[in-house]
């Protein structure tokens, strides 16, 4: 059987044109997908049942037992942390927020270690953006800054930018100018019309230089800025100003390098400036398939996109204080529930080490590095494979993930709801 128009839940591109061949309740072939999609659907190895750490190893336990013990751990905690959420659907995220509100927990999502700085910049200066189809149909200048979509978002260029045929850009390859800005020559740099190689930590200076040139102040720019020649900077600024429609996409090379959220602010302000000459937009390349959804759900429910602390009864937000990494690194947190993410692999060592010290429960379809730090791991469905639900693409377009096969696992939303009900004295949400 062939399932058409399947949505790949892996990255923020949420490509929705995959074809999956299913036989006997299994996915046997992935068509139209990139290598990451193929791996997502084909290498889907899961635990058969929940497991609990023992003195010497692990034991299988029932879902009922695992849910009961998780509720007890959370109930007994003074400073519980609910973290992750970015690889599951909005329905599970929403119950997560309800749990956090009920028990006065901190709830945070993976933005904290990816585009958190982008959010901080947006909260200062806003976000001139658009849906990806605007770029596909209109953009004649594409800039990839501090990112490597060929590796991380393999179909971004073919579906939305460089190679995508658009209404006003019928001959994409010929009509589009692609600029890649990075500290190293990546595969993406290989296809650029203009590659701008910046010295490490030089992004802020280069963005400032471009802003100055766009504002007509080229005379103040020295011969080289962070390794980039003035001639190239002037050329880039000219390409941008004379574009019909320009789009900047940026990644963790900009958010997590020196300057962090100030880099993003500078890039947004460059975009703002360019809008006084032509049309320009900017967008983060979001990683996890539904990380943007976790921002959206958190925001309409609590007012904040990440790092929400309910300890005082109200929703309180102060990144740097209420962010998961900081709460763990300070050793403040005394129990953790990790859902649909892998902080064990992505967090700084001190933060991950604290997860191993406290009772940590993982709800995730797959065994990952966090499993090794946890007390209990509860396997569940994977959103977009054996569970349906809502995900938000990197540009905010909401897409319904499909249930392609049934593997007999409970949905994480269902597990979370049972935990909620126990915490709420048996009263249903």
């Amino acid at each position, binding site marked *: 059987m062939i399932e*058409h*128009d399947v*949505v790949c839940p892996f990255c923020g591109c949420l490509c*929705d*044109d995959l074809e999956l061949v299913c036989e006997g309740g299994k996915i046997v072939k992935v068509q139209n997908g990139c290598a990451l999609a193929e791996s997502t659907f084909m290498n889907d190895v899961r635990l058969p049942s929940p497991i609990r750490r023992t003195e010497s190893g692990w034991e299988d336990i029932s879902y009922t037992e695992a849910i009961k013990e998780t509720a007890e751990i959370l109930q007994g905690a003074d400073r519980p942390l609910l973290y992750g959420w970015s690889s599951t659907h909005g329905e599970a995220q*929403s119950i997560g927020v*309800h749990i956090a*509100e*009920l028990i006065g927990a901190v709830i945070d999502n993976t933005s904290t270690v990816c585009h958190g700085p982008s*959010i901080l910049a*947006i*909260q*200062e*200066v*806003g*976000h*001139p*953006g*658009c*849906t*990806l*189809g*605007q770029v*596909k*149909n*209109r953009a004649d200048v594409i800039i990839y800054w501090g990112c490597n979509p060929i590796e991380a978002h393999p179909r971004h260029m073919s*579906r*939305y930018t460089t190679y995508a045929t*658009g*209404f*006003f850009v019928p001959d994409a390859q010929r009509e589009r100018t692609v600029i890649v800005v990075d500290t190293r020559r990546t595969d993406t740099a290989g296809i650029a019309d203009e590659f701008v190689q910046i010295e490490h930590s030089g992004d802020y200076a280069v963005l400032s230089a471009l802003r100055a040139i766009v504002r007509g102040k080229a005379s103040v720019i020295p011969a080289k800025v962070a390794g980039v020649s003035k001639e190239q900077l002037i050329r880039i600024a000219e390409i941008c100003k004379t574009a*019909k*429609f320009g789009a900047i996409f940026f990644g963790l090379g900009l958010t997590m390098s020196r300057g962090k959220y100030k880099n993003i602010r500078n890039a947004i302000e460059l975009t*703002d400036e360019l*809008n*006084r000459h*032509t*049309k320009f*937009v900017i967008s983060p390349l979001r990683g996890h398939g539904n990380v943007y959804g976790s*921002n*959206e759900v958190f*925001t*309409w*429910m*609590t*007012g*904040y*996109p990440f790092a929400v602390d*309910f300890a005082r*009864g*109200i*929703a309180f*937000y102060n990144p740097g204080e209420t962010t998961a990494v900081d709460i763990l690194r300070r050793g403040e947190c005394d129990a953790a529930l990790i859902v649909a993410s892998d902080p064990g692999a992505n967090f700084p060592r001190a933060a991950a080490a604290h997860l191993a010290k406290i009772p940590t429960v993982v709800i995730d379809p797959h065994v990952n590095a966090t499993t090794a730090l946890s007390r209990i791991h509860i396997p569940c469905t994977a959103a977009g494979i054996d569970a349906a639900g*809502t995900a*938000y693409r990197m540009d*905010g*377009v*909401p*897409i*319904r993930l499909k249930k392609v096969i049934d593997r007999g696992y409970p949905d994480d939303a269902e597990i979370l709801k049972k935990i909620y009900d126990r915490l709420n004295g048996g009263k249903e949400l």
Partner: protein
Amino acid sequence: MTEIWVKNACVIDPIRGINGEIMDITIRDGRIVESVSDRADVIDAQRCLTLPGGIDSHTHVSGTKVNFGRYMSPEDMRAGRTKRKGKMHVTSGYYVPTTFGNSYRYSAMGYTTLLEGAMAPLEARHTHEEFTATPHQDMLANTLFDGNWAVMDAVREKDIRKTAAVVAWTLKAARGYGIKLTNPGGTEAWGFGEDLTGIHEMVPHFAVTPAEIITTMIRANELLKLPHSVHLHCNNLGKPGNYQTTLETFDIVPDLNPDRQTLYATHVQFHAYGGGTWKNISSKAEEITRSVNSKPQIVMDMGQIMFGRTMTMTADGPMEFNLHCLHHNKWSNHDVELETGSGIIPVTYSKKSAVNCIMWAIGLELALLTKNPYQCLLETDNPNGAPFVKYPEIIGLLMSKRYRDEECATLATGVEQRTSLCALERELDWHDIAVMTRAGQAKALGIINQGKGHLGIGAEADIAIYPIRTDSVDPAREYRKVVEGFQKTRYTIKRGRVVSRDGDIIVDGANATFWVDAKVPEDLRMENDPEFIKRFEQFYTVRMSNYPVQDVYLPRGRRIETEVFT
């Protein structure tokens, strides 16, 4: 079976011609009935003002840009926050509250039905997700068509039937309620950073004009027999001198429907400016209302602004960028492929700004100069003009010349010469206010026969009981009591359940979402149109099969089916 017997209610129900009668209202299973058994729960209204549940026919409370307004504004989230209390969830935000914040505060003010003013079809799923989290109001979504490529193609071909077919397909896919045009054509031009300056200017690349879009969509709307009319945010919003565009637009609207208006013009305050610059801007409310008073086919809403900080958010992307260039505050923009645009910036309306004072005066003038209150509804384009929690103050201003005079005395100098507000003696009465906050909305939206906006037998039991005794309060003098009274109902009843008492929500909500399934002849079904499908698959970034909103997003969807046209 649940029954409620509301006794001693001082009822104003304009649709049924009831004006201040002391009477009982009986409710069974969510609807108003002839009588109830003696086991019914009794509410003694103590002769307090009792109205059908409030209806907001143009507000921004859910969806992509509203949520982005929250996302980018932690300063506002801090400005209004409440703890979990009983059945109430935590809330954050003042001018762009969280969904629960919106729902609780509207409910406390007696509002039971809201129309989200702007939903991009591509992002409709998001709007519906937030509707579900706005539990105490029934919801409807205006669906954006201002820059819709398929619509503009059909308009260019002068094909009303095809236009109607595209509308029907899109409304169904988005689970939308009615047609919204925001700066028609202008949002497409903004795709390349341009805007339009008049209704007869060509939309770049599409060879249609806003006037053609508006008139064709009006015809298509009536062909489809949609319950609501075309809902228009005129071109040139917020520009000095724009009243000319507004008048020109009103002049091309035919009178096609005996049951309601043919055009709903929204937030007209923002479209009623004289002068040519910010220095000589003036009120043209008299000219606008003269036009509306002579055209029963037009209903407008005020778009009142109130002083203080708020957030502007609209599909009108170019307007927001212009505003950003004036305010130099943060700016977000979000264009939606093949459909529309949007922008967001925070603003502060100040009494020290003559421009802001004139804007404030214009909204009130529009309401006071419109003869028939059914033609000028009370709104702030929440949160653009002010957050909706300011409605009671607006009611106070409309009912009291003294209150207006006291406010006028605090405004920037020079305002008096450029508006006529200070000279207006009219004071609206309780009945006018009931029309402007529920009956008028129900009629304009075409939901009277859905049991909304009145308290007749069979109507949905959506009722607001305010702690106001109309026989003992003189609104002209005691306007403070009026304002306080409208801020917090004694009881808000939603579909036969008391949901709010003295400002606190006491039950979990269970709202419904109304949407329109407009029927078209078999040969006009867009899902079978090869050219439509081809263009869709070529230019959108989602597959056509993944575009329509699934039923699971409307747990209590109420489908309104129209008759097939021929």
